[in-house]
Structures are given as C-alpha cells and as structure tokens.
C-alpha cells in the first residue's frame, strides 16, 4: 500500500463513498453543538420532520454567550440578564431535550467552551472525525483526529445523516524543529507560523504539525497550535498520535475503559504519517529562533516578535497589502515604526478555546504571583475554559493568586474572545488577549486586540505594556 499521511488515514477510515461528481460522504463520529450555530439547524430538522441519525453522536454545551459573573450564573438560565442570550441558551436546552442529545447545561459542572470540554471529557479521541459549527474545531486535531468547523446547514446535515458531504483537502506538513526558548510557548509558535504563511496560507490544506517542538509540547500546547490553524486558512490542523496523546486520554470520563483500552491504543497508534508519505507542501520552522509574539493589526497574520516594531506601510510594495496595513494602523491607533512594547494597554483577557486550559492558567499565575496588576490597566479578566478547569485551578489556589494581584476570576465561557456576552472592550481600548482573533470589533465596538500567549498577557497586566518574557 502506498505511504499515507495522517490526514489520508483519517480520511480513508471515514469515507462512506466517493461519488462520481467528486463529492464524498464522510462519516462523522462526533458533532459538538453550542447555542449560537445550532438553533437554525434544529429548526430545519423540525420543519422537515426529521430526527437525529444518532443522538449520542453529538455533545452539546452552551458557551458563546453565557455570562461569566458568579452572580448571573447562580440561578441558571433564568438568571441570564440579556433576554436575547437567555432565549438562545434556553433554545439549546430545549432542542437537546426534545431530540435526546447529551448536553452539559449552563449549570452543569462540566460546562465550558466546546473545544475545552470535548478533550477534557475524553469525548474527543484519536482517529475520530469531529465537527462543530465553530471554526476553532480544528483544536481537536491535536489528538490525531480530523476535526474542522462547519456552517449551520452542515450542522443540520450531520444531525440528520451523521455524515458530511465534502471533498478531500491537500496535505501540508509544518515541521518545527529545535528547542523553544524559555518563555516561548505554543501560542508563539502558531502566531509565528501564521505571520509567515499568512491568513490564507493554509487554505485548501489539512495541516499536520510535526517536529521536535511539537513532540515536546503537552496535549494542551498542541491544542493551542491546532486551534489556530484556521487563522492560517486551514480548516483542519493535526498532530500525530504518540505516548503523550495516549497518556492524556487515559481515564477520562468518555474514554474507553479497561474493556477496550488495549484494543483502542493499538488502533490509535496507526494515526501517524508514514515515513515515506508525500505532502503537497512542506514548511520548515526553526523553533529555537521563535520569540514571544504580539499582533499589532487587525488580522492574525499582522504579527511581530515583541521586540519588533509596527511596520511602515511605505515599505510595502503591493497596493492591496499596503492599504490593509494603513487601514489596520488607523483602526489600531498605532503609528508606523512604533515599538510594540510602547503600546499602552487598557484591558487584559486570559481565557478562550485557544488558551483557557489549566496549563495556560498555571503559566499566567506563575508570572503574576505576588505582583499587582498595573494601575494603568482598567480591567484584567481570567476566564477558565470549563468548569473542571476552574475547579482544578481553585484546588491549586490559582484563583487567589489572580485575585490578590487584581484580576477578576470568572465563570467558564467564551467571554471576551468574541464578546457576545457582557465582557467586552470599550471603543479605542487596547487589550492584551490570549484569544485567537484580532478582527475589527471582535472584542467590542472599535476595540483594539493584541493576541499574545498567557505568559505575555500576564506580564503585560503587571507592567501595563508588553515586555519580552523570554528575557525576564
């Protein structure tokens, strides 16, 4: 048999049929659902008189617009102050209840951001196909899984048929070798890659991340890298299964128990690219040269090392790109050649499906311990990615470290990553954010987002501006 990539193997093992017109039916093992992109899908099912193909092939939890203050969360859905959000969260509960779909409701201790919940519960396992009406579904690829975002019509299609009409993508390998410097994290690795290949560099590809740096990353670090594949244009990012993957999965609530464990591990080990596998594109990155990254613009590709400067549009020869830079500088209130460390910050956000896991909070806390948030920073939020992340952090006393420093310690949800709830930036405010998108208005009307790692965000909260955490 010809040598295959990890993606080829995942594709082949889920292919129901390849049709003559070039489209294919791919079997979906797990669909994750949340309140924002599912109501119209359930409504479509009802209107057509259809029911889910396999209800237990889905798992739902509200995350995008749940409030994150303890006060609002105390009385469940009834306590949600925003009446429109309340209807959407209630609608998810009603739909899951009507169609017998497993759900962690807002009051369930396991509730959280779908992309934190799936892996944490062991619902995401190696060798699976996972979809969700959310582009950051690529996160789950960290498990040697084919996982990507879909639209609401496709959510309805997967509900009704447990499969997806799709086409095969091309293969890209991004090989990151060397050793990361202290203070340089998975977030910096993926931001560096996006800066290099651009926000459309991965369009049409499934990206496999490999090399020494990836092998040495924890599962949480790998999730951070895969999470932002979509910011490089690739629907799916993935990492081959190894012992780190298997150790992470073992013992999780939805993971196979002893009865199947040996068989499962044996099957998972095949989900690596063959040595002779051919990729359509190969990119090599020297991990030892990566510095902590900061985005200065309004697209994740607008990124520089923290010791760098805001680019000068005059240096850009391409007219469309020059216009983009000018537009971004104007929106961000920055001037050409300004040092990134000179940007005055108003808010700090630590959380999201990119960086809202326990290791992220531990890293941030390690830098914050015994210090105070700068008086220049108006608000600093820590929003754990899920109930279990929050509980674990509290067992370790991280919440006290954050609170004593002047951070707010919140309830789990997407929060200020996309500001669908009350957590948002005011016009013109600059935010050091561990989230994934710095688009205009993303974190609030005329808000200005700088994407960074949890370590960088924590240091920025203390200083009131960015510093190079790799030299501290």
């Amino acid at each position, binding site marked *: 048999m010809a040598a295959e990539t990890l993606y080829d193997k995942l594709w082949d*093992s889920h292919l*129901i*049929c390849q049709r003559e*017109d*070039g*489209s294919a*039916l791919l*079997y979906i*093992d797990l669909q994750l659902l949340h309140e924002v*992109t599912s*109501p*119209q899908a359930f*409504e479509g099912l009802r209107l*057509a008189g*259809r029911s889910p193909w*396999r209800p237990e092939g889905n798992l739902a939890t509200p995350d995008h617009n749940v409030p994150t203050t303890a006060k609002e969360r105390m009385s469940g859905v009834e306590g949600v102050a925003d009446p*429109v959000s309340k*209807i*959407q969260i209630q609608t998810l509960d009603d739909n899951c209840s009507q169609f017998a779909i497993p759900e962690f409701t807002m009051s369930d201790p396991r509730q959280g951001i779908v992309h934190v919940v799936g892996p944490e519960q062991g619902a995401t*396992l190696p060798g*699976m196909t996972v979809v969700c009406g959310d*582009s950051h579904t690529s996160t789950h690829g960290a498990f040697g899984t084919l996982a990507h*975002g*879909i*639209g*609401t*019509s496709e959510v*309805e*299609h997967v509900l*009704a*048929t*447990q*499969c997806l*009409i799709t*086409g095969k993508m091309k293969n890209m390998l991004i090989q990151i070798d060397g050793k990361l410097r202290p203070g340089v994290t998975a977030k910096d690795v993926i931001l560096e890659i996006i800066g290099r290949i651009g*926000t*459309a560099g991965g*369009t*049409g590809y499934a990206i496999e991340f490999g090399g020494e740096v990836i092998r040495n990353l924890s599962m949480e670090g790998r999730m951070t890298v895969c999470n932002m594949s979509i910011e490089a*244009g690739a*629907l799916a990012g993935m990492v081959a299964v190894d012992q780190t993957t298997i150790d992470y999965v073992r013992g999780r609530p939805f*993971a196979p128990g*002893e*009865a*199947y464990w040996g*068989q*499962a591990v044996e099957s998972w080990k095949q989900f690596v690219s063959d040595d002779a596998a051919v990729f359509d594109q190969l990119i090599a990155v020297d991990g030892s040269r990566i510095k902590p990254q900061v985005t200065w613009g309004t*697209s994740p590709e607008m990124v520089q090392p923290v010791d760098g400067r805001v680019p000068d549009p005059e240096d850009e020869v391409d007219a*469309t790109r020059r*216009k*983009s830079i000018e*537009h971004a500088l104007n929106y961000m209130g920055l001037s050409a050649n300004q040092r990134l460390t000179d940007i005055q910050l108003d808010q700090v956000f630590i959380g999201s499906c990119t960086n809202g896991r326990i290791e992220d909070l531990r890293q941030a806390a390690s830098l914050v311990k015994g210090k105070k948030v700068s008086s220049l920073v108006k608000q600093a939020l820590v929003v754990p990615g899920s109930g279990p992340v929050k509980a674990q952090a509290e067992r370790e006393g991280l919440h006290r470290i954050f609170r004593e420093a002047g951070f707010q310690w919140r309830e789990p949800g997407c929060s200020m990553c*996309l500001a*669908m709830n009350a957590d948002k930036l005011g016009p013109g405010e600059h935010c050091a954010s561990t989230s994934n*998108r710095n*688009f*205009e*208005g993303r974190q609030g*009307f*005329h808000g200005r987002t700088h994407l960074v790692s949890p370590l960088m965000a924590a240091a920025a909260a203390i200083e009131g501006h960015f510093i190079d955490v790799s030299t501290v």
Partner: protein
Amino acid sequence: MRRFVQHTGVVVPLDRANVDTDMIIPKQFLKSISRSGFGPNLFDEYRYLDEGVAGKDCSQRPLNRGFVLNHSRYSGCSILLARENFGCGSSREHAPWALDDFGIKVVIAPSFAEIFYNNCLKNGLLPIVLKDAQVEKLFLQVNEEEGYRLDIDLQSQQVITPGGERLEFEIDSFRKHCLLQGLDDIAQTLQYTEEIRAFEVSRMEKVPWLFNKKR
C-alpha cells in the same frame, strides 16, 4: 434550497483583502435563532457610525457615507466584487444569510475562505473565483461606469461583462448541479441510507468504544 441558474445585477466593489465574517455580520446579531432578518446589519460597523445593537431600528441610525454600500450609485446592488480571502474567520452561516437578506446573490473574488464558500453554496448564493487580473479589471470597470452590471450564467460557468467579455469560472460539478436544481443536501444524502448504515456497522466493529457504553 433556492435555485440559482442565471443572474444579472448591479456590482458593488469592496476594495479590501481578508474581509472576515465578523466584519460581514458582527457577533451581537448572532443571538437570533432565525435564519432571516440579518440584512440591515450586514457590514454593520462600516455602514453605520454608531454602535450596532440587536433590535435597534437601523433606519434611524447615522450612516457612514464613506462606505460603498451607502453610495447611491450602488443602490439595488446584488453582486459583490471583493478581494482575496473573502469570508475568512468564523464559520457563522449568518454571513451568507446577511448577504442574501440584503440582496447580494453573487460574490466575486480572487479567493475565498473555505467555510464561507461552502456556506454560500448551501444557501443559493454563488461565490465565484476569478483570476487576480480579471478581478482587478472588474474593479477598474465598476469604478469607471455608474450602474455597472454583470451577467452571471451558472450553466455555462461564465461572468459576462457589459462589453461582452466572457470570463469563465470553475465550480464543483456536484455543487453546480445542486444550485441549478435547488436540491436539498439532506434529502440527497438520505438516498445513501443503506451505505451509511453499512458503514456504521463496520465502524462499530472496528471502534466499539465509540458506540458501546461498556467501559
């Protein structure tokens, strides 16, 4: 799904690369549980000067006169001419819903983000990829000529300019068939019920832990 066979309409140029779906329809409008009504908030942060709030009457809001959709020469437009990587970012299908609700039936760009591209096709909207130079030329023509219109013919896969130039575009044959016939994806897939069932049975044997609650 609504059929798409042929379309003629006024072209509006949006001269910006990497237009993301947050820009097309900001998140505060995603709380709706319906598929319609997003049109007034299409490009909300660019069309209006004030902050968009769900439920606000948009007819009373101050317009950003500098934004193309507010230029009278493009009133009644139904074809959006855009730059590379249009529709990047979030998977929200609210983006094509908003475009459609506003009246846009065709988007032409040198490249699209994949999820957005797919989402358009599921809603009877036609995303057309043309070469950089062709798009550049269309931008010049639209800027020069008020009321500039294009004819789009899906059957022959052509964009026809007022000057009679025919620009061919590619489209997946399955998607073309669905658009021309207005076919429902789910009904079509359910014709494969036996194949799906058979696959599922074999999958249960190979990876029983995904199906069997026994731990």
